[in-house]
């Protein structure tokens, strides 16, 4: 018996451009047929793989093998094909060519909360989500208490999840998936959400799963997670495998490469500036620990100016995990000469709820806007966070104290709010 559990050979996946983004209407088919009758038929043939402008290969000629018990990190930029690879292995989508062979029960965790229904209670959703992920009813029943304890939602288990906070929902969803106990587990970026404490717990759980001799394929943009969890890494770039080797080595190479060129897409590369690493000055990383040190926060963003910028605009957004803009700033009259530059941003304080955020930068030079999502993400953490159950909502973490005063401060107010009956009149 060989111990190779995943064997992938010449795997390729082609998408029609725009296919993922929008659905077809009959009108489109008719329009396409009218403009070029032959194309309707040609599009079906998988013969002309390259040079066809209407299709792109999200993945091409990917071959590798994974042995039992290996924990493999998959790294690469956005759009490199990491998720496509996982989706093919998870059988969510078919490959266009090549094949993969998988030995053993496979579980996939491509998203947290798959199949959750907001109207159903936590308990009901555990069963529903468990069944969708491939567990039998008996299995879910057996693990139910463990799942609920892991998610720390015992008190709310019979409340509809629409009343849960994002954090609670995620914890419950991950707990279900974490107890799937497949022989091979595919994980996509799901640990980048949630509070730090829970992330640690999830990582711990995954580590345990790996120690149990199970195989894990793990996509993440958080290089620290890859370093901690994985021995081996696959670096996917432009739909192919760029490197396959020890995780630590590859992560270092990948980080160096990202730093050199910034996380720029092809369209952005034409602009007059590229952005590289950024960091919180106090920690030298992407993590801001609210418990530590003085209030002031300095964010340093490195960039390289390619063409001179005159009368440019610098527009920066801070976005939360749900893509809400939490803060933004527009700076006019940007004047920069070619060469490296650091944008130093000083905040008197950043009173934000712990979580994962991203910086988004736009620079305007003349008529061209260049847009960048800075890597890595921005983690705000706090050990003393009172939001243990994730039931707090909102963005701000304002300095706040609650005082309770005994006795009636204002009788009229209490009367208005009905706490004591109205005086006289119709009584």
């Amino acid at each position: 018996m060989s111990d190779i559990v995943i064997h992938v050979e010449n795997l390729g996946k082609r998408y029609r451009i725009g296919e993922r983004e929008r659905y077809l209407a009959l009108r489109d088919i008719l329009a396409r047929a009218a403009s070029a009758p032959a194309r309707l038929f040609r599009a079906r043939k998988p013969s002309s793989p390259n040079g066809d402008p209407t299709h792109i290969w999200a993945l091409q000629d990917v071959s590798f093998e994974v042995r039992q018990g290996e924990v493999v990190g998959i790294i690469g930029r956005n759009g490199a094909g990491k998720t496509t690879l996982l989706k093919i292995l998870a059988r969510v989508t078919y490959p266009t060519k090549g094949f993969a062979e998988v030995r053993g029960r496979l579980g996939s965790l491509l998203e947290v909360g798959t199949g959750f229904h907001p109207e159903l209670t936590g308990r009901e959703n555990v069963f529903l989500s468990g069944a969708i992920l491939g567990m039998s009813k008996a299995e879910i029943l057996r693990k139910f208490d463990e799942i609920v304890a892991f998610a720390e939602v015992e008190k709310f288990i019979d409340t509809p999840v629409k009343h849960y906070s994002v954090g609670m929902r995620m914890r419950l969803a991950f707990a279900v998936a974490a107890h799937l106990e497949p022989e091979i587990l595919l994980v996509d970026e799901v640990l980048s959400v949630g509070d730090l404490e829970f992330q640690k717990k999830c990582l711990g759980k995954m580590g345990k799963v790996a120690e149990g001799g199970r195989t894990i394929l793990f996509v993440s943009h958080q290089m620290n997670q890859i370093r901690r969890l994985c021995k081996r890494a696959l670096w996917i770039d432009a739909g192919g495998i760029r490197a396959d080797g020890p995780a630590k080595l590859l992560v270092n190479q990948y980080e160096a490469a990202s730093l050199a060129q910034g996380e720029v897409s092809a369209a952005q590369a034409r602009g007059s500036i590229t952005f590289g690493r950024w960091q919180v000055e106090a920690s030298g990383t992407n993590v801001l620990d609210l418990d530590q040190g003085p209030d002031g926060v300095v964010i340093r963003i490195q960039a390289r100016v390619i063409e001179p910028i005159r009368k440019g605009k610098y527009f920066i957004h801070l976005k939360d995990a749900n893509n809400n803009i939490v803060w933004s700033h527009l700076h006019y009259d940007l004047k920069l000469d070619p060469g490296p530059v650091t944008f130093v941003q000083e905040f008197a304080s950043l009173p934000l709820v712990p979580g994962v955020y991203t910086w988004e930068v736009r620079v305007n030079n003349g008529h061209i806007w260049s847009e960048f999502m800075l890597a890595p993400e921005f983690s705000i953490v706090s050990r003393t966070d009172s939001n243990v159950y994730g039931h707090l909502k909102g963005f701000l973490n304002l300095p706040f104290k609650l005082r309770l005063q005994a006795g009636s401060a204002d009788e009229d107010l209490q009367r208005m709010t009905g706490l004591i009956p109205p005086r006289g009149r119709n009584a």
Partner: protein
Amino acid sequence: MTNALAEQAVQVEPPVLRIAPPHGWLDIDFKELWAARELLYFFVWRDIKVRYKQTAIGAAWAVIQPFMTMVVFSLFFGKLAKMPSHGLPYPIFYYSALLPWMYFAGALQNATAVVVEQQQVITKVYFPRLVLPLSAVVSGLLDFGISFVVFLGMMAYYRIMPGLAILLFPCFLLLAVATALGVGLWLSALNAIYRDVRYVIPFLVQFWLFASPVAYPSSLVPERWRWLYGLNPMAGVIEGFRWALTGHGQPPNILLAVSTAMVLLLVGGGLAYFHKMEGTIADVV
């Protein structure tokens, strides 16, 4: 000890799953589908749990819809238009036809929408996709059951005893489910690709209602065209229901034969088409 042995046995021969580009029309993995029966159960259960959440009168809707339609039909088609009714009281005549019709129309709508509604799940997890239209068709049976109880009450009120034909009722119910599934399979796969389908559905259901013997008996259709009329599978289903439940009228022989053949074609074709689209659904939905 035996446990450990059993585990070892599992370890020795893990199933090898081959993931390759799709091919063929009818290599549906029925074994896998059977293994997913618990998932089907959960989808149906979810549908039923959620259906009447946040409604004021809840499952009463399952009764109100066919009942009010029956009242309107009895008034206009019955009392005013004097439609022949196999000698049945109009309320019974119409309600017995509306039972399968309402089920069919509802199941059709649910089955059409289900793939698109569940796109979040479809694009993230693998399971036999057939479970989705199946669940839509099965979960409609609850509403059917509720409105059926009302029908029993009406039968008692009008003191009508069903004949021996009632024994065939389960067959007609099965035929109704198969019809809904057959059409639902086509429409749900089509709807995933062409969203035009959802605009077509209301028309389709309306036209289909008039093309089916709900408001009138099929005996209005000339004898020699009856077989052609049977190409509408709901014609056989509805006349079958009426006959089996009330014992009035004649067994819809030719109609039923043609309808049954048509249903088999629809389900077979639907399975093949749905299966063909299954591979691309996650990419286009």
